[in-house]
């Protein structure tokens, strides 16, 4: 077995670690895969995770993806592949488009005989489309989903089992939290492609104008409420970018961290060994978090009034226009802001540039219970052969997954917005380049260990996208009191679990 990554050669077949354990001493974790010979194995020690550590390992290893994957599926393999994913959009920075184009060129070069039909879908429509397609036996062979979606399809038996070993990697090469998200009832149905967590951004100038320390983010969620009010009262500008739109994925991404920080939860997803059986949406912590949102929206009116119809996208422009002081932000949002500013013209330009200058990134606030953030990212899945339009070409799918989830492309395709799912990606030179060029990447990256995955149950989409936003809306519109809203939501989750 070749030692590709220049790490100390350790005999393979040592141990398969418990994927739930956070103590992945990756130096030891290696792989022995039936049928295939490649192995990268993680060269990364998650216990040492910190911005400094991330910087120290970047650029320490080389990788030749095409050669490695050729060991899994020969590069002259002749076949077909259909693939759906959320491709880069016009809103994304130039580099994403460049990487995407490079990826497809590299793929074509590595496997010239695999005829590829790739469909880039819109994030907001994709879930419904995949559901309909799977029902109508019109699914693609391979699809890349946001981290939450796979379990629903796995539960319905619509996915083919797929584990890292199937494409020449090891389970330990990936974040344990990410592997949790592709595991349903003990079986693995996908491979993480990229993982990220959010950070907190604020406008230092607005903070200074409002008499706050411009270089320090609010330390706790209670501070967020306080700061938000202070900013609104002093400057008339909205403080915190609350979002509470119904049926929009980014509402729970922004609200659950707050809920968890106060000690709440949808189910018991915050515990070490979650069973997803007990409902915690109406515990004291959840109610405290809901109360905090209520205080900002109703009592202090210090957040955008349009929060109930807003998605996160709709906060970006007010932020860049200097009309919003702080919000939870995706790692890509900095790049997006820079991009927005670069496209602005005339008087807009000066204003937007100033905001970018004053933009700061920090860790998410803590709560009484913990600091928490949603463990996000994407996974790649293979659909069950009978659902695939025109049948499944297993080897083409394996070749593609090997190629796209390896250290190289999992890093490059996640350029501004995320981090490699394959942990060895952190050791590549591209990671180093990213750290050198993308401001604040180390900050958001260092939130990863605080990441909590959403419950891995098929009902999760309904809980997160419908019940949780509903709870917020019920409380914020005054239709129910905070207690009633929480109890009502908890009851709905309970009914859902009972299989109504």
């Amino acid at each position, binding site marked *: 077995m070749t030692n590709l990554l220049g790490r100390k050669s350790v005999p393979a077949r040592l141990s398969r670690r418990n994927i739930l354990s956070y103590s992945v001493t990756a130096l030891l974790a290696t792989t022995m895969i039936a049928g295939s010979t490649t192995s990268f194995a993680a060269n990364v020690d998650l216990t040492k995770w910190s911005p400094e550590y991330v910087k120290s390992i970047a650029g320490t290893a080389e990788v030749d993806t095409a050669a490695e994957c050729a060991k899994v599926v020969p590069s002259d393999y002749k076949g077909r592949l259909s693939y759906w994913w959320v491709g880069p959009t016009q809103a994304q920075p130039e580099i994403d488009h460049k990487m995407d184009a490079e990826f497809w060129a590299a793929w074509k070069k590595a496997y010239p005989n695999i005829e590829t039909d790739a469909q880039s879908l819109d994030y907001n429509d994709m879930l419904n*489309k995949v559901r309909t397609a799977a*029902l109508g036996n019109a699914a693609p062979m391979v699809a890349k989903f946001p981290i939450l979606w796979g379990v629903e399809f796995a539960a319905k038996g619509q996915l083919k089992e797929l584990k890292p070993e199937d494409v020449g990697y090891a389970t330990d090469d990936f974040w344990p939290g990410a592997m949790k998200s592709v595991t349903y009832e003990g079986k693995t149905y996908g491979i993480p492609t990229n993982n990220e967590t959010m950070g907190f951004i604020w406008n230092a100038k607005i903070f200074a104008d409002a008499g706050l320390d411009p270089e320090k983010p609010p330390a706790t969620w209670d501070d967020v409420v306080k700061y938000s009010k202070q900013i609104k009262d002093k400057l008339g500008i909205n403080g915190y970018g609350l979002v509470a739109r119904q049926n929009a994925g980014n509402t729970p991404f922004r609200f659950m961290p707050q809920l968890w920080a106060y000690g709440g939860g949808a189910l018991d997803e915050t515990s070490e060994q979650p069973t997803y059986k007990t409902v915690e949406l109406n515990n004291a912590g959840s109610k405290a978090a809901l109360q905090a949102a209520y205080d900002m929206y109703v009592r202090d009116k210090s957040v955008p009034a349009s929060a109930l119809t807003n998605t996160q*996208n709709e906060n*970006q422009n*007010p932020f*860049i226009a200097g*009309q919003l002081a702080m919000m939870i932000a995706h790692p890509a949002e900095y790049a997006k802001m820079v991009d927005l500013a670069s496209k602005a*013209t005339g008087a*807009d330009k000066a204003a937007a540039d100033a905001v970018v200058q004053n933009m700061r990134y920090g860790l998410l606030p803590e709560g009484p219970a913990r600091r928490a953030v949603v463990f996000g990212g994407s996974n790649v899945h293979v659909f069950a052969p009978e659902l695939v339009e025109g049948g499944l070409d297993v080897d083409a799918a394996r070749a593609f997954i090997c190629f796209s989830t390896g250290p190289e492309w999992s890093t490059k395709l996640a350029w501004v917005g995320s981090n490699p799912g394959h942990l060895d990606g952190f050791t590549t030179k591209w990671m180093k380049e990213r750290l050198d060029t993308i401001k604040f990447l180390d900050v958001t990256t260092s939130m990863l260990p605080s990441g909590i995955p959403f419950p891995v149950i098929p009902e999760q989409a309904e809980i997160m996208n419908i019940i949780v936003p509903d709870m917020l809306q019920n409380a914020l519109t005054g239709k129910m009191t905070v207690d009633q809203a929480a109890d009502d939501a908890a009851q709905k989750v309970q009914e859902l679990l009972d299989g109504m």
Partner: protein
Amino acid sequence: MSTLTQTSPRPRPRPKKPIGGWRWAGRGILAFLLLFTALPMAWMVITSLKSQLAALQYPPQWWPEEVTFENYILLLSPNNAVGQEFLQYFWNSLYVSILSTILGVAVAVPAAYAFSRFRFPGRQMLFFSVLLRNMFPAVVFLMPLFLMMKWLGLVNTHGSLILTYLTFGLPLSIWLLKGFYDNIPPQLEQAARIDGATRFQAFFYIVMPLSSPGIIATAIYAFIMAWNEYVYALTFLNSKDKLTLPVGLQRFFAEYATNWPGLMAASFIMSVPVVVLFLVLQKYFVRALTEGAVKS
């Protein structure tokens, strides 16, 4: 109510005094409706002439401090990715709408003719069940129709939309054209047939031309329906290069964050073809809407 107290000395050509109040009320209503109709559209246009950040001011700029056409240029210039995409949506919409309109008419004309001329069993029932077509909301049909399109191999093709859209205009076309054929004396055809025309020829050369106003009227109605349709297009199409404008517009919104000015510009451009078509063929369109419901 006929109180014949006043035997009306001279019949006035135009009503006088008491009418004044009513006429003013009428003018008031019209003025109000004109504002109600036009102001939102005016604000759409004004916003579309603003830069992104200029739109996000409170209080708003009532008139853009700096009028810019960049949103229109961006959308309509084939030299950049946004423009290419938007123009692609535009052509797709045009293509789907035109084709479904033509096919719709082609299907409706013989059916209307048959409903008018023939007395076959089930005629009434079939006729009225056709009329009920538009009573079913698109939303509830999405799943079954998707499955069917899949069986027909039409998913992610414009064929799926054309097949669905051509039924939008059917009830109206059949209803309207049947009215026409009812009024065309059958003797005309008989005369032609005596002269040696086949039945089809008689129909095609004699009856069809006489019904062309009805055909135009229903065609424009069907075109506008197809142009604006959103729900089916959202479900049946995946490829970005196949999307139609309403879906593209929504996607545009999702992608471009809150680029309200850009969105307003896109809404404006999207409305132009149907509005122009409508203005040019107004007479026919109005006829399409009202024929059948209004009998003298």
